[in-house]
């Protein structure tokens, strides 16, 4: 039995879902960020699968760029988190709720 492409896709979907659920449930900003990384990885996996299926290098190019941008995003996001947590140590995502209606 060979590995079907669909398996990869389903694995990617499950990984994405776990990451998404984690994002919605966790309050620690760093952990929330890590869940975002999980979601990005799931997307990468899906793209690579399709690149192989469709015999198209464009999928891998996208993954390449996603990696780079994810790196930049992490840099900036961590900078923000550092700024906030320096002022308010022990803050969670729920504490930044001044924009309420």
């Amino acid at each position, binding site marked *: 039995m060979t590995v079907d492409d669909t398996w990869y896709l389903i694995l990617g979907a499950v990984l994405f879902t776990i990451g998404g659920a984690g994002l919605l449930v966790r309050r620690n900003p760093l952990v929330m960020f890590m869940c975002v990384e999980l979601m990005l990885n799931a997307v990468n996996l899906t793209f690579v699968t399709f690149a192989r299926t469709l015999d198209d290098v464009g999928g*891998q190019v996208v993954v390449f760029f996603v990696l780079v941008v994810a790196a930049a995003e992490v840099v900036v996001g*961590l900078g923000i988190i550092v700024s906030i947590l320096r002022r308010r140590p022990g803050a969670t995502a729920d504490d930044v709720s001044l924009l309420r209606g």
Partner: protein
Amino acid sequence: MDVVVFAAAAAIILAGALGVVLSPNPVHCALMLVMTLFGVAVLFVQEEAHFLAAVQVIVYAGAIVVLFLFVIMLLGVDKADSLSTEPLGGQRPAAAAVAVAGLGLVVLLAVRAAEVTGARSVAGALRGGESNLDVLGRSIFTDYLFAFEATSALLVIAVVGAVVMARRPRDTERDR
């Protein structure tokens, strides 16, 4: 043989993911993330995306997670996060529902809607004679050159921005 590799890698990935979501200690979450990233790299190799597998390990696991750990260390947020309480009512059930629904739909999409046109994109064939690195490199530096340059600029800007943001305020120079 492929199946075994796939199964093992999938197990690692899922275990790691669940660990990230469920661990109360952020340091544990980071380590679980590393595990997941390694699993994904294995799958990349199995899918003949060798260069990407390498980059994944080096950049993602090697640099990004290290960054995470640095911040955790600097800010001391390694204290356990209380997972049992949920201040926002209804968030957990709603999240569960959305997650299940989303998963179901995507799986359905993957299984049922197999519409592959078979047309080539601009990028060109993946297989061919050359190695994966060659193909990828050729594509990036010719067809996607503009994107490449843009991302380079983005990286520089991100670094500058992070440095500016994370500086400790000097009391003598700037008024806060």
